[in-house]
């Protein structure tokens, strides 16, 4: 039961990342591209967690935590740069 659910989840999350890549490449404005990247790293966390379930190992938990923190910080840095023209004033 978990095996079938895992394959369906892999497919759906991979399709979500493909849709994010479309918005990242096409997106008419700069905030569109930023939010596409933001969603892409959150979806990549989901993909890493699915891979963890598939391998039945817990090696990649810290990787997921690191991606969450670095992605948030980079999103805030780019937004701050677009808002103020500077990151640390």
């Amino acid at each position: 039961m978990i095996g079938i659910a895992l394959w369906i989840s892999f497919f759906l999350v991979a399709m979500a990342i493909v849709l994010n890549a479309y918005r990242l490449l096409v997106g008419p404005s700069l905030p569109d591209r930023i939010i596409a990247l933001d969603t892409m790293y959150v979806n990549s966390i989901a993909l890493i967690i699915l891979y963890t379930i598939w391998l039945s190992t817990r090696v990649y938990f810290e990787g997921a935590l690191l991606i969450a923190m670095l992605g948030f910080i980079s999103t805030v840095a780019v937004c701050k740069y677009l808002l103020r023209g500077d990151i640390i004033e």
Partner: protein
Amino acid sequence: MAWLDKAWVDTVLEALTAFFLIAGALITFISSFGMVHLRDFYLRMHGPAKATTLGVGLILVACMLYFVLIERTFHIQLLLVTIFLLITAPISAHLLAKVALHQKLPSDTSTTGAPSELREEDVGQEPDTPHPEDPGSSQRP
């Protein structure tokens, strides 16, 4: 925890894991589909800001249940990732909305209302009070 050794616990845990996996992946896919399909930036921001966090949170809950199923251990790192995503997603959405208002992105024609609590400079206009090192900036057309 003796009740964990009963036979029906495995079945229930497996069913719950599969349910959370499917639900999380489906919600994640729907939010990304909304980000492609909707019309302007302010509408597109709803998916990543709310639904993606819920979907990834459900997948993390499924992973926790899976490790309870196979190892009878409870991993707190996954709960940390969930809490971190729940804290940071509104902040990045707020900052992105401020960036969009600052760049004066076009909104859909059926959009009504305007952000009333923001200052002039937050929506891309010149500020009311001049900058102390540049007194002539408020007189610019």
